């Protein structure tokens, strides 16, 4: 066992580091090779998109050309067309507004809920939940199958629910607790959007809100709430209870404690959650496709629509992809420090 570093056998020397903070030659070469290879895998497609955005039709069709100035003369035609002549700015601003607003809303509402679920004990009577679900089903059947006016159906159901609450619901012991509520909230994420999108479409149609930013914001908020609850619950659970209790003894209300003590303490986690939800909404395609048209169209839909009868015009497409990536990268750059740490805490306990 007494190898001195210099006299180690060749194989050992190749595979085992000589010292603590160093790497042996072969693992080192292999590591760098693998990392550079993956860097290439990541960067090359992006590079190709960037380069293509500087081409015009003939550069693409007679290509492939790889390096601007050497292979071909880069031109800003595509950029010029997409940014100035085509209506790109509208969807771009829509995307920015919708994704920022809905992400912040989801973060706020979701964090409030998960904080309450972590810190305050809930007891909801199972009978009340079942009654509620039954009444909703009843309303839907009445409206859909028997053409009852929906205002009337909802009013009747609300009255019945109030009646149920004050009478037989009280007699039942069985109740759902915090974990059940939390599980219910999180499990909503499993639902594929395609299941929900049709009824949501019909709902907004009835409200005359199709193709508005509001519809999209509301929907995205709903779709992303489960993720926010899932990720933030462990951040809140990790705060020492003493801090909040001492604030409460000092006379702060629960809301105040939430906004002034709890939220600032979990900002890393919130930043990571914000980033993830922002990416998901910024890139969301299916719901936007259903719920928007000309007015509230977002970027993914615009990108997808580039598949014209002549086939996609790569140079235009590339411009769109580039301007879509840019802002997210900037935001991620600002939040980079928090992201890994935040994601970790959320994922540790799930």
């Amino acid at each position, binding site marked *: 066992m007494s*190898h001195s570093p210099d006299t180690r056998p060749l194989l050992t020397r190749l595979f085992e*580091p000589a010292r603590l903070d160093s790497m042996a030659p072969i693992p080192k070469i292999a590591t760098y090779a693998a990392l550079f290879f993956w860097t290439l895998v990541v960067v090359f497609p992006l590079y190709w998109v960037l380069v293509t955005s500087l081409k015009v039709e003939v550069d693409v069709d007679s290509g492939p050309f790889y390096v601007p100035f050497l292979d071909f003369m880069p031109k800003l035609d595509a950029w010029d067309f997409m940014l100035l002549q085509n209506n790109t700015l509208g969807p771009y601003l829509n995307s920015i507004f919708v994704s920022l607003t809905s992400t912040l809303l989801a973060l706020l509402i979701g964090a409030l809920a998960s904080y309450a679920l972590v810190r305050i004990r809930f007891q909801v009577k199972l009978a009340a939940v079942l009654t509620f679900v039954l009444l909703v089903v009843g309303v839907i059947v009445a409206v859909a199958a028997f053409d009852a006016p929906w205002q009337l159906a909802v009013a009747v159901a609300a009255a019945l629910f109030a009646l149920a609450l004050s009478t037989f619901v009280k007699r039942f012991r069985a109740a759902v607790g915090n974990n059940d509520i939390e599980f219910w909230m999180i499990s909503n994420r499993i639902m594929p959007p395609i299941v929900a999108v049709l009824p949501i479409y019909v709902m907004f149609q009835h409200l005359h809100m199709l193709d508005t930013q509001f519809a999209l914001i509301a929907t995205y908020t709903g779709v992303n709430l489960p993720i926010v609850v899932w990720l933030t619950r462990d951040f809140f659970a990790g705060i020492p209870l003493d801090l909040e209790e001492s604030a409460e003894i000092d006379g702060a209300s629960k809301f105040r404690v939430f906004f002034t003590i709890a939220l600032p303490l979990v900002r890393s986690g919130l930043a990571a959650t914000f980033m993830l939800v922002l990416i998901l909404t910024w890139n969301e395609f299916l719901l936007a496709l259903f719920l928007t048209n000309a007015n509230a169209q977002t970027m993914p839909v615009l990108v997808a629509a580039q598949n014209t009868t002549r086939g996609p015009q790569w140079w235009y497409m590339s411009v769109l992809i580039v301007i879509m990536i840019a802002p997210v990268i900037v935001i991620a750059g600002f939040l980079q420090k928090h992201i890994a740490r935040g994601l970790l805490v959320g994922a540790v306990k799930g």
Partner: protein
Amino acid sequence: MRVRLDNIHKAFGHVQVVKGLDLEVADGEFLVLLGASGSGKTTALRMIAGLESVTSGRVLIGDRDVTDVLPKYRDVAMVFQSYALYPHMTVFANIAYPLTVRKTPKAEIEAQVKEVARQVQLDTLLDRFPKQLSGGQRQRVALARAMIRRPAAFLMDEPLSNLDAKLRGYMRAELKHMQHQLGITTIYVTHDQIEAMTLAHRVALLEKGVLQQLDTPANIYNRPANLFVAGFIGSPPMNFIDGSLSAGRFTAPDSDFGTLSTITRASVVAGVRPEDGRVTEPHAGKLTGTIYATELMGDHTLVTCRIGGATVTVKADKAFNRQDGAAIGVDFAESAVHLFDKATGERIN
């Protein structure tokens, strides 16, 4: 086996954490590295273990220079402060791990684990997982895992600091006994001077990465090498009075007494341990002042007096009962006086 540190330096970036540490630990010796928090003890220990590279200097285990040798080839075992038990392995698997990775035959592992587990009284808990054990039991698992290898040296980083006071006392005795039985060189890091005094053959006192004194507990206590050591060891700490020495006679405001020394020096510090002093009537002892505070400690009373500009604490009888502010005298034997140079802090008598 012998462990030697040769002028070890360690820097993290620009921060010098260990500055020229020389240490020689004899075979079978129990050496305690003592120091305040942040003094570089852990760093020193980790460099012996090979978990931290040294910036300059040499580490020797036995006669072998292991400065650049990987931890696994150093043949030392370490007990971590957090115990570092593997949570997904049973106690048995945890203790057996060092042998398992060396591909020791099953039967032999079994026999050795049983033997070691018996020594640390874990034989009935071998099937449990770490989370099913109490703090003291976990500590013993960590110990057993170190013992099973019969290493050249044991390294322990505050192994008892996570235990409650009672258990700590018990485990201290156990550790000492075990180390004596096994006869394996042990380097033990702690910030607790009681642990250091009770466990060590020799204590190495570290401050800001510099070795202050390396000696037996008795010598560290009785003949502290400098002001820092004198102030660090002992509870309550030694009393210090600034003054001057002329031909062995110490003078300061409100104090004037002879010492066993014969030196003359303008600026010195005289130190007297609280238990070496006793209260007398005013002007009957070597010092005179007023009572500042009294604290009943149970079997004795601590009397703190203001003497000149200094504060002096002495142990008195538990029946001592005098008003704060009353005049009082303090006396002690000439042999109980420690003298230090004020500028260098070095002992001069």
